[in-house]
């Protein structure tokens, strides 16, 4: 079962530092109506223009193509789905959106039925129908035209007729999705048990698309709105303006707010320009924030300084930064354990920007996933207490190796602090007796290149990961399950893990419909692969640092998609 998460790039995964924050999923069996509106944000008032300055445009705003955290958070201003995350006062919940309930599972979680809210409108005043929701999913099958999105519909829905999408099969149907005769509920028949299907339907491939408004690949440039805002203008790479959608009824939506009159995004400014502007709080920056620009150079100016306190947001994200050790090229477990011991957590975190950027972690699973997260030692010590390199232990493991591979290639991306971090790792490995070549890859092709098997494979891969949904299935399966690989492509299993004993444990989780049980099992698997196989060296969980203008309120860390979120933002009078 292949599950994929979100890589870094333009994604920042958000999760509050407070211990009390969890992603709550109301019981699937509850049939209560979840009525809107969303609870009022303290101090919020309507009006004004929220300005957003980003370094780059969104990759995609088409629901079928959107797979990046920042865009997934933002596009909820104009895209509704069956279920949606709402973060309110530090708590994140998955709630009904177009659905009227959380869905009912039957037949061992291979059939899911969602009741639908009546009288929810598109921006042109027409009603969003069950057929629209079904079409949105059917359209996602045209993944050669609508490139880049999640494939959860194709992965999980039953498709006996090999449906290929409406562009090449305009008259064909996808019978695994059925609307009730009255159109007041929708049922999905899955090809396998998916106990976390509620999290899946929050994704865009289950969002409605009005067939008459479908413009194929061009839909990316002007999505049709079902949310509180609609697109007024969108000039790719330059700017995007949202204005209020008069057809959105807050009473039908417990998950969204619409405080600003207008939201104006400008793309393309330099990191330094955005940082300086937001810190200086001048001109338009007073009413501004950024979705993709964290404080880097300006962080030391802002952290701990009283005057910035009310507009500085720092939170621990579930984004793990780690090193994957290629089991195909580093075949001896003692060499891999030597690498684990050699890495110095302090120097890597320092290279990343210091303790305001990351905190040492022994796991790729965030501690907020309490059923999955394990606290265990790496190289015989608690990395949060003894983060320094264990060079003596590394040399000892290396001396025990029978296949002594000491020439290592460390792969990293040409982006941000990646080179500095890779250099820190290189230096630590050399101190332990390895000979290191640092290999830089272009950002755009990194994940493609490092996944290639059979030629020029790197030995140690600098990686990062954030879950697609708040469960270990969104992390451990994607990164460590050997079944995701092919002979030529490691996919997301960059360590090429395929140990038979570990694989048996993975297979046992396939039938676990209880999320708590599967989280526990996958947490155990991760611990085994790290401690026994030494395939991964988790180093830190990212801390995100954002600043926004003094006239902006309601900016928060979103627990659903992991971003500095404008969802509840308002302009102060």
């Amino acid at each position, binding site marked *: 079962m292949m599950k994929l998460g979100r890589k870094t790039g333009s994604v920042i995964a958000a999760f509050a530092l407070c211990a009390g924050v969890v992603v709550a999923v109301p019981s699937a069996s509850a049939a209560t109506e979840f009525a809107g509106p969303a609870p009022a944000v303290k101090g919020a008032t309507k009006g004004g223009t929220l300005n957003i300055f980003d370094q780059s445009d969104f990759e995609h705003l088409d629901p079928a193509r959107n797979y990046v955290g920042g865009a997934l958070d933002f596009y909820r201003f104009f895209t509704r789905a069956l279920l949606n995350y709402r973060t309110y006062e530090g708590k994140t919940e998955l709630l009904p959106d177009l659905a009227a309930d959380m869905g009912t599972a039957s037949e061992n979680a291979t059939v899911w039925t969602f009741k639908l809210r009546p009288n929810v409108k598109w921006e042109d005043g027409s009603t969003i129908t069950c057929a629209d929701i079904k079409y949105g999913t059917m359209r996602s099958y045209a*993944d050669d035209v609508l490139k880049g999105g999640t494939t959860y519909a194709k*992965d999980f829905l039953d498709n006996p007729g090999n449906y290929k999408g409406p562009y090449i099969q305009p008259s064909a149907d996808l019978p695994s999705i059925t609307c009730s005769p009255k159109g007041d509920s929708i049922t999905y028949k899955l090809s396998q048990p998916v106990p976390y299907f509620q999290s899946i339907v929050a994704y865009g491939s289950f969002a409605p698309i009005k067939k008459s408004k479908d413009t194929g690949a061009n839909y990316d440039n002007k999505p049709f709105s079902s949310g509180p805002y609609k697109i007024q203008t969108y000039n790719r790479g330059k700017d995007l303006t949202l204005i209020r959608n008069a057809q959105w009824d807050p009473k039908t939506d417990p998950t969204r707010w619409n405080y600003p009159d207008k939201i104006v995004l400008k793309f393309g400014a330099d990191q330094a320009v955005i940082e300086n502007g937001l810190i200086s709080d001048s001109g338009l920056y007073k009413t501004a924030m950024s979705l993709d620009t964290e404080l880097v150079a300006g962080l030391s100016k802002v952290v701990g300084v009283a005057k910035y306190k009310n507009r500085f947001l720092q939170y621990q994200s579930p984004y793990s930064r780690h090193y994957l050790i290629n089991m195909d090229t580093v075949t001896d477990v003692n060499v891999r354990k030597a690498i684990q011991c050699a890495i110095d957590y302090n120097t890597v975190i320092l290279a990343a920007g210091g303790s305001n950027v990351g905190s040492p972690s022994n796991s790729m699973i965030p501690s907020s996933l309490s059923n999955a997260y394990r606290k265990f030692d790496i190289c015989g010590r608690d990395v949060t207490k003894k983060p320094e390199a264990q060079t003596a232990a590394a040399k000892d493991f290396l001396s025990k190796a029978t296949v002594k591979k000491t020439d290592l290639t460390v792969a990293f991306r040409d982006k941000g602090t990646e080179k500095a971090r890779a250099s820190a790792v290189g230096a630590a490995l050399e101190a332990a007796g390895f000979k290191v070549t640092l290999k830089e890859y272009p950002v755009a092709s990194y994940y493609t290149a490092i996944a290639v098997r059979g030629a020029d494979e790197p030995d140690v891969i600098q990686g990062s990961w954030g879950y697609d949904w708040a469960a270990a299935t969104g992390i451990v399966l994607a990164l460590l399950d050997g079944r995701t690989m092919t002979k030529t*492509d490691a996919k997301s299993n960059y360590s090429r893990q395929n140990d038979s004993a570990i694989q048996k444990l993975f297979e046992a989780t396939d039938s676990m419909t209880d999320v708590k049980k599967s989280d526990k099992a996958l947490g155990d698997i991760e611990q085994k692969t790290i401690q026994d196989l030494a395939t991964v060296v988790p180093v830190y969980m990212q801390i995100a640092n954002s600043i926004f203008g003094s006239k902006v309120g309601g900016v928060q860390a979103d627990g659903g998609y992991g971003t500095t979120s404008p969802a509840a933002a308002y302009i102060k009078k």
Partner: protein
Amino acid sequence: MLSYIARRITSGVLVLFIVSAVVFSIFYILPADPARLACGKSCTPELMERIRHAMEIDQPLATQYGRFVKGVFVGRTYNAGTEVQLDCAAPCLGYSYQTDLPVTSLIKDRLPATLSIAVGASLLWLLVGLSGGILSALKRGTLIDRGSQAFALAGASLQIYFVGLILQFIFVNKLEWLPMPGYVSPFEMPFEWAKEMVLPWVTLAFLLSAIYSRLTRSGMIEVMSEDYIRTARAKGLSARQINFKHVLRSAITPIVTVFGLDLGALLGGAVITEYVFNIPGLGKLATEAVANVDMPVITGTVLLAAIFIITANMIVDIIYSFLDPKVRLK
């Protein structure tokens, strides 16, 4: 003259063919696969092949290039016979892999911003450079000369990203005298347009006027020592007539050459300026395309830059022949 222009245009078209062929070839050599990049994380070999087919990059290089050239002259159709057929009118430079928008519309959209930077900045640096150089030449050895040359040296030594960021910090963030640089249409909001362009113009003018100042100064000093200038003085011509009608005119020819090259290059995209001041021009479009391995956009922007440089060179040669009667266009 007309036959000269015709010959230059013909050779220019040949250069464009060579440039486009080279860009295509380089793209093929690149390790990144645009289909794999567009495919997303949930990619299978079968999906990648379908995407390659949809993008028409599963064809041999020569076929792809042939279709591209045909598209430029007569247009082309993508995904013919499907629900998502796209007709691309000539000159068709293809569709962006990143945004699925026609490359010609992306270029048209970004060109005004680059034109605004290039034309405004070039006029300003020409004015500043020529003025500085003339003043220095006429007041050679004085404080004015030294001051002017120091100013020029500072401009030549500093970098756009440094000066640009400093000026923004001072005038936009701290003093709030100017709005954030950007681009609005001069036909819709001319005053706003000018205000938002001031910083990019001033930055580029400060940095690029240096060479014009030095060239003007040294050229004028050299010409002023010529015999015919002494003769002109002896004949009783005024200083103004001598300096501007005779000295400057003779000294200006290398400046025209450099100006043509600089302007041509800037029209192709002032990358750093556009990034520092967040002006959505051709330079940014090109660099974003390179980062995204967006071959149609890369080809389109490279060709356009080549057109500007070829045209600028041709115009410079023509102007040269007017300025210097000894030069004959052959």
